């Protein structure tokens, strides 16, 4: 399954929230603004409609993405105003992969939870929430997963400030 195939199908199905596609391409040394894309098809999707989009990806017989492999987020830079949310889907029956990217504003990083569509999203969303400060609305278990419950700040944000002390113990 080539990339244009999946994207054409998604447009044909009118998958909710589909914004566009990034074709896989090589970086060009002459054109610095052109970014390389490798390792599978990328599409961008509106964050607020992510669960509906994933539901279509899972249930539509032309797509059949049975498995959610990963949800992670990226803070591209200190000055960036948006965080990226990266979702990785896999179809075992159709042998295809899909990388989904959504943007949420750093000021109010809220988006609906996907754990109702794929139970696999539960733990990945908890990790994103503690590491990036994302708020997954409607998440069934919004506790920290890797960090202590009383940890301050979101370590994978680029503007994260390293703690000076933790429970009275110096970290410097």
């Amino acid at each position, binding site marked *: 399954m080539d990339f244009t195939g999946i994207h054409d199908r998604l447009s044909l199905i009118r998958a909710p929230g589909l914004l566009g596609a990034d074709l896989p391409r090589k970086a060009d040394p002459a054109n610095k603004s052109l970014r*390389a894309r490798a390792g599978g098809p990328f599409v961008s999707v509106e964050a607020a409609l992510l669960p509906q989009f994933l539901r279509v990806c899972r249930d539509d017989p032309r797509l059949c993405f049975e498995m959610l492999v990963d949800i992670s987020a990226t803070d591209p830079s200190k000055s960036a105003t948006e965080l990226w949310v990266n979702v990785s889907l896999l179809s075992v029956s159709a042998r295809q992969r899909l990388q989904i990217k959504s943007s949420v504003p750093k000021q109010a990083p809220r988006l609906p939870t996907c754990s109702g569509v794929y139970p696999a999203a539960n733990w990945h969303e908890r990790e994103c929430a503690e590491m990036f400060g994302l708020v997954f609305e409607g998440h069934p278990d919004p506790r920290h997963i890797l960090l202590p419950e009383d940890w301050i700040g979101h370590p994978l944000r680029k503007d994260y400030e390293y703690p000076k002390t933790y429970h009275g113990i110096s970290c410097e």
Partner: protein
Amino acid sequence: MSNEASIHGAGEHAAQREFELEVRAQDMEVNFGPQHPATHGVMRVLVRSDGEVVTGAQAHLGYLHRCAEKIGENVEWLMYLPYTDRYDYLSAMNNNLGYSMAVESLMGIRIPRRAELLRVICVELNRVGSHLIAFGTYGMDVGAMTPFFHCFREREWMMALFEKICGARLTYSYIRIGGLFNDAPPGWLEEVARFCDVFEERWVEYEQLLLSSHIFIQRTAGVGVLSREMALAFGVTGPMLRASGVDWDLRRDMPYSIYAEIFAAGAFKVPLGSGAKGKLGDCWDRTWVRVMEMRESIGIVRWCLAHMVEGPVVGDLPKVLRVPAGESYVAIENPRGELGHYVVSDGGRGSIRTRVRGPSFSNLAVIEELLPGALVGDAIAIIGSIDIVVGETDR
């Protein structure tokens, strides 16, 4: 409690004593871990039980969190490679390969043929070593001590082989971006061939020792049944997914490196669980899949040895490693499942995001569904059959 006190007609003191002596049989909460031999690391599972039946389970992670992803943002591309050894320390070669391939996919480097062949040999030997641990310690979890020693005898040789090729026994950093650290020393390939011969002879013992043991079957068959639907919904990958009857192996279905060629030559098959002793997707099936995979890995190593070529082991690399701006997600089949690396570059000396999708993390998430309904005694058998490496769930 107070009802009983009034039935006995005893005073306040008697009621107090009775409360102290009471043995609660309902909804008892038991901690497995953080220091428990069956968690294979430092992990805590809070189990709620009603008598002997587990009614709820909650995994508490993070005891081994070492900020691997944050470190990825703060170091240069090549400097991150030794950190990859340390998340799944039982399959460090696979982690090296996954990370190197993610960076190479952005750079578009061609890997020399000899390096590809040596990579596959190392990765598959490492898979054998990892499954030996999984199999040996699982036997110990359910009460069989002997197979553990047999597994460690073979694993010791495997580690000695790696020590000869890269100087390390556990954290190799041998597979590097662009190729390998160095070529195999003289006589190493011949020794690998000898290892394959001896291993295939001894492999037969595993089935006799554990898989066909009546006690082992009683302990694992029909226990911890993971259905195909649940495995897919929870993003379970690797031997666990195959034990549930899903025919999926990245080495065959989305081939990377030279696996497409090896599979086309018929050097390996993908073993699938069948419910031979109990139900499809039970603990016995998971163990059986791992044991079968060890033999398939030896087949792959043999194919690579037979098709070995001479030549360089490092591709054309610049003096300073610069990765073009872009992003890439590359997944490989680790002994535990899909190991994905999502790297983002802005053209600088280091990555701006290194996301590690570890298979143990998703495989572990399913225990919160698998444990309820099982007996407390089976909880260890179920947790052990998942074959987690806590270094990877916590990263």
